[in-house]
């Protein structure tokens, strides 16, 4: 008998270092057009903002010695780009395998779980590191201006790489733990936020190190860096340990699960209180609008009692801030304005997630085709699909109205402010919803639809502001105030303008001015809102008019005769008479 059986023979760990999965992943990425589009986008954003940071508002000679400020801006920019781009690519590392049912094929190979996790991690990290290389020429330019030490340069490079390692490790861990890419994407940011709360965050360590910290501060920064490395290693280790256990998770909706747990809790409480039901969800079965029925009775962000909970959370936050502002002796609108901007971010995110997914999720679950063969019109399907979104917007509008109400209360009644601010909420919320729906109609993956919608919202808000900075350097345009006019088109500026009591922001000679022209300014703001209203109307009309084409089914032929049996295709007269009866009964 032989001493070792081939089945029980262990493969030495070093044999797993050939990394076949990493080679496959990198080859796949190299073959995808998306890789080059993302790289181009990254480079475009980096160089556009980098050139902006380097050029500043003065000539090169004046900026000699000011390299440190430019350098810091560029490094911060790279940190933010890592934070934006890396979770989007790394959070799908293993969830994509789960969604395609290919993870089991990986697990039955001789590649051990730790190697799968490590190779997936490296497959996402290496492209990001190549992205970081793109920024080095900009750092070199900043370095050449002077004021940056070599140690600082090395610290920046090291910490950027460390941050990429940290974000990739967290994203891969979340990808192991989650069922879908969407869950992994959101949980990556939540875990990173937790780490930031405990100062395990290379961004702040860079600020400490570059400020020339010594003694305890320096030691603390070094400990934090070691903690970041440790946290990344723990994420990868946990990922390896949990990979097999989390490989076959049933589909689930986390928010719905949370709400249902709350349901059970309240049902338990009702035994104590005697069964108080505040909100009844109404019809149990669909009457005339089945899609709207499902959207408003089976979805987490469409059902009345669940939306009521969302409203409660929002309103309690608003009331707390309002009470705090009211108790302050010096009445400030800033806190309410800040809360308003937070509400805008939350609302935009919720609407992007909800509206972009209503059709994209039907496509990904392969439930759309049967729906498209029903006699519901394309426009009807879309309008019914938005029934849940409509309710969500209604809830959000209540919260916006609360903030606007408190603002009016604290500052005295201003009809212009009340009217324009509420109109801005109505128009922008619906614009986000229809825009996200329009994007979702064009994409098959809900995750892609959500991300694209969010990017679109950010671009609409940010592009006019970036243009303002770029065009502001051209003196002819600056004298004509064209950059300022362009920047005022941004929804951010419009909302800022309304919050600043209808004042337009205006920059001259590096000083910030507000031009307050009362109701005339409100009229201008209303005009800008009207443009966005027009855009909303165009997107809505396009969606409804081309609903069948966007949903990918044959549209009704508007030129066809009304009676289908009189059209070409009905050959024999006796057959026509039979079919006409059917047609008249059903058309």
């Amino acid at each position, binding site marked *: 008998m032989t001493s070792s059986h081939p089945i029980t023979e262990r493969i030495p760990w070093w044999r797993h270092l050939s990394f076949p999965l990493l080679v496959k992943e990198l080859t796949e990425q190299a073959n995808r057009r998306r890789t080059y589009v993302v790289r181009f986008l990254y480079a475009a954003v980096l160089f556009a903002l980098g050139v902006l940071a380097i050029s500043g508002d003065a000539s090169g000679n004046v900026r000699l010695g000011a390299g440190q400020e430019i350098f810091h801006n560029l490094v911060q920019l790279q940190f933010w780009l890592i934070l934006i781009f890396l979770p989007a690519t790394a959070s799908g590392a293993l969830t994509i395998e789960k969604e395609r049912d290919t993870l089991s094929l990986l697990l039955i190979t001789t590649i051990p779980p730790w190697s799968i996790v490590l190779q997936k991690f490296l497959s996402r990290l290496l492209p990001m590191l190549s992205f970081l290389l793109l920024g080095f020429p900009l750092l070199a330019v900043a370095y050449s201006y002077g004021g940056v030490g070599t140690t600082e340069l090395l610290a920046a490079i090291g910490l950027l790489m460390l941050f990429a390692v940290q974000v990739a490790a967290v994203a891969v861990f979340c990808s192991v733990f989650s069922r879908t890419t969407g869950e992994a994407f959101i949980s990556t940011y939540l875990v990173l936020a937790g780490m930031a709360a405990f100062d395990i965050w290379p961004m702040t360590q860079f600020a400490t190190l570059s400020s020339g910290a010594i003694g305890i501060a320096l030691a603390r920064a070094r400990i934090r860096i070691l903690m970041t490395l440790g946290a990344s290693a723990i994420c990868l280790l946990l990922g390896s340990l949990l990979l097999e256990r989390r490989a076959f998770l049933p*589909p689930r909706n986390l928010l*719905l699960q949370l709400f249902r747990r709350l349901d059970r809790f309240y049902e338990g409480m009702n035994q104590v209180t005697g069964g108080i039901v505040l909100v009844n969800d109404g019809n149990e*079965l*669909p*009457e*005339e*609008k*089945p*899609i709207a*029925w*499902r959207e408003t009775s*089976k*979805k987490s962000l469409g059902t009345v009692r669940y939306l009521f909970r969302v409203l409660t959370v929002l309103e309690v936050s608003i009331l707390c801030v309002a009470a705090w502002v009211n108790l302050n002796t010096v009445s400030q609108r800033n806190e309410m304005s800040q809360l308003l901007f937070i509400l805008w971010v939350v609302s935009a995110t919720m609407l992007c997630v909800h509206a972009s997914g209503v059709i994209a999720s039907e496509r990904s*679950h*392969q*439930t*759309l*085709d*049967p*729906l*498209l*063969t*029903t*006699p*519901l*019109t394309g426009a009807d399907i879309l309008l019914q699909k938005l029934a849940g979104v409509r309710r969500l917007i209604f809830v959000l509008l209540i919260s916006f109205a609360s903030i606007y109400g408190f603002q009016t209360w604290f500052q005295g009644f201003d009809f212009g402010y009340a009217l324009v601010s509420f109109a801005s909420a109505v128009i922008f919320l619906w614009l986000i919803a229809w825009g996200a729906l329009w994007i979702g109609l064009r994409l098959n993956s809900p995750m892609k639809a959500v991300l694209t919608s969010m990017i679109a919202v950010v671009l609409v808000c940010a592009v006019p502001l970036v243009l303002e900075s770029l065009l502001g350097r051209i003196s002819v345009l600056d004298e004509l105030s064209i950059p300022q006019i362009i920047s005022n088109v941004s929804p951010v500026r419009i909302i800022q303008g309304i919050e600043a009591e209808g004042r337009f922001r205006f920059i001259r000679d590096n000083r910030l001015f507000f031009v307050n022209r009362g109701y005339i300014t409100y009229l201008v703001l209303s005009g800008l809102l009207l443009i966005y209203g027009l855009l909303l109307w165009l997107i809505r009309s396009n969606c409804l008019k081309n609903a*069948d084409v966007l949903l*990918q*089914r*044959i*549209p*009704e*032929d508007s030129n*066809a005769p009304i009676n*289908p*049996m009189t*059209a*070409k*295709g*009905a*050959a*024999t007269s006796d*057959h*026509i008479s039979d*079919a006409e009866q*059917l*047609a008249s009964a*059903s*058309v």
Partner: protein
Amino acid sequence: MSFVQIEGLSVSYGKVHAVRGISFEIPQGEVFGFIGPNGAGKSTTIKVLATLLKPDSGHVSIDGIDVPKYPMAIRRRIGYMPDFFGVYEDLTAAEYLHFYAAAFQIPRSRRDSTIGDVLALTDLTEKAQAPVDSLSRGMKQRLALARVLLHDPDLLLLDEPASGLDPRARIEVRELLKALQGMGKTILISSHILHELAQLCTRIGIIEAGQLVTAGSLEEIYASLGLLQVVHTQILNLSDELLTKLRATPGVARVDTQVDRVSIQMRAGELTAEDLLDTIHSHGARIRMFQPEAMDMETAFMKLTEGKTA
């Protein structure tokens, strides 16, 4: 005039020509089996009939109604079951059917009885309140069949209805389709499982690389290919004289004696199994077993196709 008419249908996805000028007809009440390898164009053709894809060229009509011109009128006449059954995880089976009953605008007063009927027909009455995602794959397929029957369509378009099912579920679906055939429904069914189609279909069409290789009744196809049908029989008083007589029977191509049976190969179109039975009996044979093999569709398929895909 045939209930379904397709003439010169062509469909492309970008540069890929999925369907290249196919033509065939399905008379009312027939079960038409659509056979072809993966990527041959079966699902694309069915999607055109289901109003989900616009043809590049050609004429497609159902019940005399032009499909691309009057998709809404067509949707009321067809029941479409795609090859993958996606579920609404949040609905029960009854809610799922109510959802589609409302989508097909069935009056509220009639919905309960209609849903009860289709659940009974598909043997899912006991599962009415079960969540859809808790059903087995076979039950989900039957639920999908129940859905397509809700509005009593004239034409059923079934894309791979038996794919991925275990033998029991496959037999249940087949029996259900037979029942629907008995109800006079016109059915277009695509499948890879050839012998099942042979048991169910009155006509078949074989498609490969986007082109229709052949279409017609099974007998017509076997006859055109010169295929042989095999009958297994056990004869108690078997003798050389009887074997000689059998070999001399017109339409019999070959007679082989095996340990427990005699296998008789007949040329399709020249002799039927019933006539052969009469002939053997007329020769004074005492027959213990007479078992015609199902037509060998796999042989026909292999003979007609070359393993190409679109």
